[in-house]
């Protein structure tokens, strides 16, 4: 008996720790969800650094009125590419990387459902960005018409138009395959006992996000295809002389674009819903309400798109419909914020680094949510539209929202990935440094916008000089944070304290039932779920 057990152990050991030998086998041909997740995260970090460098160019130019460092046309390339790189290159791949790492661990699956397609989803991305960033070195430079690619302006670019369109197609193929994989994994690979309404919130939010991705990425592909044919094949989709309408592009684009906004925030909701209960040592308040709130937000995201275009001259009925439907989103979002706060209420809270980022998320994301409500009001939006107020708003939801949650997730799950703890002092320093400089960067932009400073301009009225300088100082401080992150995590990997299986006292869920670092192949057979193993609900016997 003992013999058999030992043998089984040996066998298990072989299975668990066996990594492919060669570099190419390990990283290029891989079907392993953890390695693919790592690739996604490294790619996203690299892109975030490139995007951050572009933002430094932008803020350096805007530090003072007048033109000082770059020409306006190059400035426009920077704003356009900063957005495309950060959205499609940094935030989305980072969430997909986290999904790859954590969803199989959270539901007791061996890997993603379609591991080879998973590989392809990742390995399309570097090529897509090679094409997109390559345009910077072409005649006419990179795309400069804004990331929203509105015609006719976007069609007036040089060689970059076709490359941008095809790069977007490739990103779309990658996202759709990644999303299909996530849905198939969650619906098909849950271990017996992990019912849908017992799944961790991160997995839940990703299930809904994946649905959004499959529903809207093809619409974006259609929209940019029409751009391409309008430019090169003589179609008139967006040309009023031929019976088309440039505003039609905006409708189709934002039918993609608004769900896209939630694609970049729903997984963040999931991450925060994991971290806050852990460090409050209480179950998530209103688990089911949280799930339904995410589903409602996802549904509403399909019927609010035209709030991005209140000033294009829509009929009054349209303006009113999109205003009210947009404001409805505040209800499920409010449910989420109140439930996070209620989870913390009377909890035995501690403030380890992941928790700091999560609380920072709740506070600052809510500020971004409120400025969103202001923008939703049609008559007010006539004033705010295309000003720095909008820039402030979406950076609050994307930087202090999405990016904060990604950093929180990395701090939270890093011990599970690497088996090493992160230095708490440096982690907290990283948080407070970011907290100071991110607010210094973006909060003054509210004032600038309300005072009337338009977005996407390299020069401005001297009346805006002071707050722009403050904002630029903030941005330069922010630019140090990626280097801080590299140092902190390299230090942890090299000499961090050894992480136990459950590094956070209050953490529940299947990912904490496997060793740290998680073995290369986690579950070869469906794990047996015992009472108390799951974070939400419990197994019925």
């Amino acid at each position, binding site marked *: 008996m003992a013999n058999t057990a030992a043998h089984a152990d040996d066998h298990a050991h072989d299975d668990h720790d066996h990594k492919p030998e060669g570099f190419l086998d390990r990283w290029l*041909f891989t079907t392993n969800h953890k390695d693919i997740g790592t690739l996604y995260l490294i790619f996203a970090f690299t892109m975030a650094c490139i995007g951050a460098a572009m933002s430094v160019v932008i803020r350096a130019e805007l530090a003072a009125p007048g033109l000082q460092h770059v020409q306006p046309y190059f400035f426009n390339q920077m704003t356009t590419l900063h957005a495309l790189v950060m959205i499609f290159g940094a935030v989305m791949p980072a969430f997909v990387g986290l999904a790859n790492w954590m969803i199989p661990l959270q539901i007791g699956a*061996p890997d993603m459902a*379609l*591991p080879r397609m998973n590989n392809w989803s990742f390995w399309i991305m570097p090529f897509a960005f090679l094409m997109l960033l390559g345009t910077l070195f072409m005649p006419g430079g990179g795309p400069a018409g804004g990331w929203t690619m509105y015609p006719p302006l976007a069609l007036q670019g040089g060689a970059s138009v076709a490359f941008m369109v*095809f790069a977007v197609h490739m990103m779309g193929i990658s996202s759709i395959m990644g999303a299909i994989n996530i849905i198939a994994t969650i619906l098909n690979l849950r271990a017996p006992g992990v019912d849908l309404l017992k799944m961790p919130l991160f997995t839940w939010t990703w299930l809904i996000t994946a649905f959004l991705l*499959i*529903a809207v990425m093809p619409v974006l592909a259609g929209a940019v295809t029409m751009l391409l044919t309008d430019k090169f094949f003589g179609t008139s989709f967006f040309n*009023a002389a031929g019976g*088309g309408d440039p505003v039609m592009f905006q409708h189709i684009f934002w039918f993609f674009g608004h769900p896209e906004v939630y694609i970049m925030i729903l997984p963040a909701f999931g991450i925060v819903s994991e971290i806050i209960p852990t460090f409050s040592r209480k179950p998530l308040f209103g688990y089911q309400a949280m799930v339904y709130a995410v589903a409602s937000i996802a549904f509403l995201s399909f019927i609010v798109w035209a709030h991005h275009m209140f000033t294009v001259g829509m009929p009054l009925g349209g303006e009113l419909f999109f205003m009210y439907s947009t404001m409805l989103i505040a209800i499920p979002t409010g449910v989420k914020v109140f439930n996070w706060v209620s989870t913390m209420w009377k909890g035995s809270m501690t403030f380890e680094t992941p928790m700091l980022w999560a609380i920072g998320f709740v506070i600052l994301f809510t500020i971004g949510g409120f400025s969103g409500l202001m923008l939703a009001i049609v008559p007010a939006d006539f004033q705010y539209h295309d000003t720095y107020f909008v820039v402030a708003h979406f950076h609050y939801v994307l930087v202090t929202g999405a990016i904060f949650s990604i950093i929180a997730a990395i701090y939270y799950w890093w011990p599970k990935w690497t088996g090493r703890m992160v230095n708490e002092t440096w982690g907290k320093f990283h948080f407070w440094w970011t907290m100071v400089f991110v607010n210094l960067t973006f909060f003054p932009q509210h004032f600038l916008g309300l005072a009337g400073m338009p977005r996407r301009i390299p020069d401005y009225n001297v009346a805006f000089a002071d707050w722009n300088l403050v904002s630029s100082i903030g941005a330069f401080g922010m630019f140090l944070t990626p280097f801080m992150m590299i140092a902190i995590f390299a230090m942890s990997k090299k000499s961090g304290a050894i992480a136990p299986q459950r590094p956070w006292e209050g953490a529940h869920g299947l990912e904490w039932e496997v060793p740290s670092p998680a073995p290369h192949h986690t579950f070869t057979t469906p794990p047996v779920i015992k009472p108390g193993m799951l974070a939400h609900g419990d197994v019925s016997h």
Partner: protein
Amino acid sequence: MSDTTHANPDVYYVPHGTKWPIVGSFGLLFTLGGAALWLNEHAIGKPAMLLGVAIILFMVFGWFGTVIRESVAGTYNKQVDTSFRMGMMWFIFSEVMFFAAFFGALFYARALSVPWIGGEGDGALTNFFLWKGYAPAWPTNGPAQIGGAFETIPAWGVPLLNTLILLSSGVTITIAHHALRAGKRTQLMIFLGLTVLLGATFLWYQAHEYLEAYEHLNLTLGSGVYGSTFFMLTGFHGLHVTLGTIMLIVIWLRCARGHFDRDHHFGFEAVAWYWHFVDVVWLGLFLFVYVL
């Protein structure tokens, strides 16, 4: 059937690594990068694109070949089968949404933007200052009459015939599926073959219709918003029928080699689903592009 112990329903199945995805990525890069260079009138563009297409074809053969061999060898268990099914269903849903973008463009142009340029709704000033004298109508090539006067293809000729052809092909593939489940291989081969022929006939008529449009009706991709929506919708649909027909030929060949049995024939079903999808899209096209 070789080693069936692999397909143990109690043990998770994870496939070994593969070189095909990275090959596919290079294929995509060459195809789309080449196409972009070509559109920018760069000499290297077209050969690069053709090379890319060749690489993608190589990848598709290689990747599907690997999966088919593993499937025939009985490597996959029930769970893998379900994953494949879900993958195909959601892929078809993504295709539906791709077509939705173009249908959306058609509805928006017909119901909103064309009447607005013509002065309806809130468009009185637009019409007065920009497009004076333009009376909204459908079909239209806009106030500037881009592409010149054109005629449209009547719905009740070839398009109706093509509708009947596609609907019949939906019936024949269903008969073939029932034959497969009943183990009647000859019937399977005949009706699957008929489906291929119907698909090819559809494409032949479609090509004929395009020639007619370009040569006699002056209806082109450049015929304003009508030509744009007409050719993009029917063109992408035709592309999908072409793909579907190739897929049907592949499973016909696989059936001829004795692949698929009564209970395990996901490859067949996936193609059948896809075929029904192009069928349904065509019904939408027939109604909104041709009839109305």
